[in-house]
């Protein structure tokens, strides 16, 4: 399904104040409704390679898979939107690509990347992520984090070892427990959410969330939500103002109108025929 006109998307990636390279990568394809953000890691520019390979692979694979794809189908085995499976496959491909490069290139050994991807289809957004890059939803003035980081801190918080406040002060902020390209296989955590027109989705790397509080992000989106361009610039600016220790990348997407897969009596009839 072509989502041109149903979504407004803005991408912005900034090297920050302390790093020399931007190891983040952002990509989007409005036609298939895909947003991808990756935060690479690994020395000697390997992080750039990893994040770039991951986003490009996601884009290329999904573009191909979604051509001629009937939207709105439910996978009978998992009960998920069929597109979710495509997302999982694409992430597996991305992982395999990064992994094989890191295996064969000594200078890329050990490289990896986080990944967060949002695929819009049939009035839903399918959110997949690996690592500590996040997706937020801004709806009716409230900001909600839809992804839960795959990080040591998060696990410590989940198990009650750390409070939220302690976590902010932790030194282990950047330890992720899951990443693309480290192991031959990786599991993409995937969730489905309904969308309503007016929703704003924010994909960002930890360069933003480590520097800017959720409250400030919420305030920014509440104030500048009508101008995504300005909102994105403002978010990056705030992160840099707060130190900009890491690369900062954001993707903002606003839902302009519903985009349900056409479903009517004859679709049901057709489904019955199949």
């Amino acid at each position, binding site marked *: 399904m072509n989502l041109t006109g149903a979504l407004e998307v803005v991408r912005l990636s900034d090297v920050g104040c302390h790093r020399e390279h931007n190891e983040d990568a952002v990509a989007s394809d409005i*036609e298939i409704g895909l947003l991808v953000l990756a935060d690479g890691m690994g020395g000697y520019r390997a992080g750039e390679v990893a994040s770039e390979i991951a986003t490009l692979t996601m884009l290329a694979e999904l573009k191909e898979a979604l051509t001629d794809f009937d939207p709105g189908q439910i996978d009978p085995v998992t009960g998920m939107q069929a597109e979710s499976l495509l997302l999982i496959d694409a992430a597996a491909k991305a992982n395999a690509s990064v992994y094989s490069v890191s295996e064969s290139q000594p200078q890329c050994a050990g490289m990896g990347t986080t990944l967060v991807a949002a695929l819009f289809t049939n009035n839903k957004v399918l959110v997949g992520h690996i690592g500590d890059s996040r997706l937020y939803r801004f709806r009716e003035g409230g900001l909600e984090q839809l992804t839960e980081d795959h990080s040591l801190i998060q696990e410590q918080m989940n198990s009650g070892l750390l409070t939220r406040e302690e976590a902010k002060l932790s030194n282990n902020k950047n330890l992720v427990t899951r990443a693309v390209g480290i192991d031959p296989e990786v599991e993409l955590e995937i969730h489905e959410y309904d969308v309503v027109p007016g929703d704003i989705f924010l994909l960002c790397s930890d360069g933003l969330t480590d520097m800017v509080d959720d409250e400030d992000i919420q305030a920014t989106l509440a104030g500048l939500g009508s101008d995504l361009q300005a909102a994105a610039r403002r978010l990056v600016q705030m992160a840099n103002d707060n130190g900009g220790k890491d690369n900062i990348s954001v993707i903002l997407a606003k839902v302009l109108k519903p985009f349900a897969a056409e479903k009517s009596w004859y679709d049901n009839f057709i489904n019955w025929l*199949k």
Partner: protein
Amino acid sequence: MKKTFWKADWFAGLVISLLFLFAGGSAILQGLERVAYDWGVRASSRDAGDQISIIAIDEQSIANIGRWPWSRNVHAEMTDMLAGAKAKVIGNTVFFTEPQIDPGLAYIRKITEFVQDAAGQGSELAIADTEEVASAPVQDESGHNPLLDGLRTLLDEARSALSTDARLSHSIANAGNVVLAMPFVIGEPRGNPDKPLPEYVSRNQLGKVMDRVGAGEAGLLPIPTIGVLPPIPELGEPAAAIGHLNVNPDVDGAIRSEPLVLEHYGQYYPSLSMQIAARYLNLQPQDIEVRLGEGVRLGKLNIATDPYLQMNTFFYEGADGRPVFPVDSFYDVYSGKIPVEKYRDRIVLIGATAEGIGDAQVTPISPAMKPIETLAHSVASILNEDFFISPTWAFWAERGLWLLIALYLILLLPRLRAGAAATVTVVLLGLLIAGHFYLMTQQGMWLQFASPAALLLVGHALLTTKRFLVTEQGKVKSEAESAESNRNLALMFQSQGQLDMAFDRLRKCPMDDSLMDLFYNLGLDFERKRQFNKAEAVFAYMAEYNPKYKDIEQRLNRSRAMAETIILGGGSAGRTNAGTLILDDGTVEKPMLGRYQIEKELGKGAMGVVYQGRDPKIGRVVAIKTMALAQEFEPDELEDVKARFFREAETAGRLNHPNIVTMYDAGEEHDLAYIAMEFLKGQDLTPYTKPDNLLSLDKVADIIIKTAEALDYAHSYNVVHRDIKPANIMYEPETGNVKVTDFGIARITDSSRTKTGMVLGTPSYMSPEQLAGKKVDGRSDLFSLGVMFYQLVSGQLPFTGDSMATLMFKIANEEHANIRTLNPDVSPCLSDIIDRMLEKDADKRYARGAEIAADIRRCLGQVG
């Protein structure tokens, strides 16, 4: 979603549907309907009954009775015969529209006149009378000349015999049940007829005409005529009835319907078939009820027709290939061969079937049916009330079907997947066909289902084709869009050395000129990595798009040659000259093996080619020994062998001794394992084993000492060479430098030397325990060194055999010949050393190389 509407599927469906609606009357679609109708007719089967027989005027009859047209006497006689046999109705389809006048009759008439004049006035009136009615009995008058009377009688006889019309007229009148045929001239009347029809014709007009459905006003009247060719009065008068014998061929020229009634200036005349049927039911034309626009009522029989009073005749199939109506040859009946009694109480139809006088007609069940048979089918149809009707609601049913199919094409089909669409279409088509045949065969109804079916098929084909083409277009479009990311990925992978992945990605991009550059670079990268088969694939892929691009033609050929070399020539046995040739060819990218540039081929080792290479980073020249392990080993043991290879190479790499070749590096690239080692000038000792090219004893001793010390060093690190032989000792005569090569790797193939044989060579230098397959230690190397010593001194091997088996037996069991018998110059001291080195029992040999070196030195000291 912003597609312009004329590109939408539903619009295509609408257009094709409307096209079919307006083209419904076209010859193609109507022809299709007719084909469907004919199939329906053929599929129907009813019992024709047995009341109708045909007497055919066939070739046999004409051959025996005479040329057509026959004398009407023949018809008269046949009529008499049938009348005698009490046939119920005789239908004669021969047109008697002209009198038949025998040339002789004219003269008879003249003679009669003459005789009449001669006889005088008295009898003139009587003669005149008899002349009018030929069959009238000859009148006899008294008082006349008897000669003249006789002549008159004769003339009367002649006249009645030659006046065949009179004879037939008499027979028809006599039979009383003969129905004759007459053709009407079909046409739209413009005014009034020239003259009224004679009474004997007009008495056949249908009496009861009713119009219950307003057919007259709607113009739904039978076929109009402007003229008629009635039988001559002589025959028409006595006939029981006369019916028209006009046919109204369908659009394709076939006979499917029978016009039961024709209109002639407001009068309605029945067809021959209906007259015969009526006669059979003892009904008069006046009893036949015409219901304009609906049909005809014949006594109790209700014949439904189309609005123009045409009956869609039922054509009966005969059982077991026999004709459904018995057909007898006219001649057979005439000559009495067929007993005429069989026609009692039956309808007898007489008509021509012979070539030239009974032209065949196309009917639903036969492409060549004689008219007389068609008539029989019509009569049977009427009598059995078997016919096909198009019900009044047929029009609406057909339109409804059209609408249904159109809606399917417009609304449903564009939303169905190809498989589901095909299924639905096939099901609909099946329903249409089944419905058609059900109505035809069971209900005798004909609805035009072929057009909707054709619409369904054509529409489906059109829409799926269109969709296929549009999808292809869409694919091209989205391909171009995703090309960008694939291209970037490819570049990324290529820069990371992932050439295969880069190639995969590039192949997903639509080819254009800028992409060719990327492919070209990729091809060069493959060449550099010596993956010539991959390079070949890249160049071949490029050549598909543009074979003239840069020099890819050349590169393709070279890559192909190289790919074959690398793949087939991994072992020395399969290596071709091309291997050397291409490496010498400076235009190829300097091939790379691992990080080494290959400069030239040095020679062929036991397991592969040895190249001279260069480490570009530090400019060091190296010798690179390659081993095509994949060709030497089965896939299942390959992993194991590789692991062993690298383990051994690693071990050997740790050895650091002036008399051992230094190993720099070991690696593997696409199934080609390699070892980079110190590049030596000099050559191995093989040339010095020839009896006429032996080195001096001193030099040999020196070589053995150095080798023994090298082995001692290696053995102290638990590295066993396993393949000590002259070919593995490099020697530089100028400096006396000795280097042992191939430590650890030489016998990597121990476990599988059965595969090619060439790896093995001969086991001449092997120790008994090595031959036995036991675990070997350094003392085995010392045995081999002893063999080599023996050979370098004497030019002969201590153990030789015609076959592998003898050789192995001798090594294991037989004593070698004393060295001094071969070379008397050898001192007994050295001879003892050799003997001890060649002890079969490892425990009795020297334990260490150093001991040998020391003993030899001592010996030389004694001698010197």
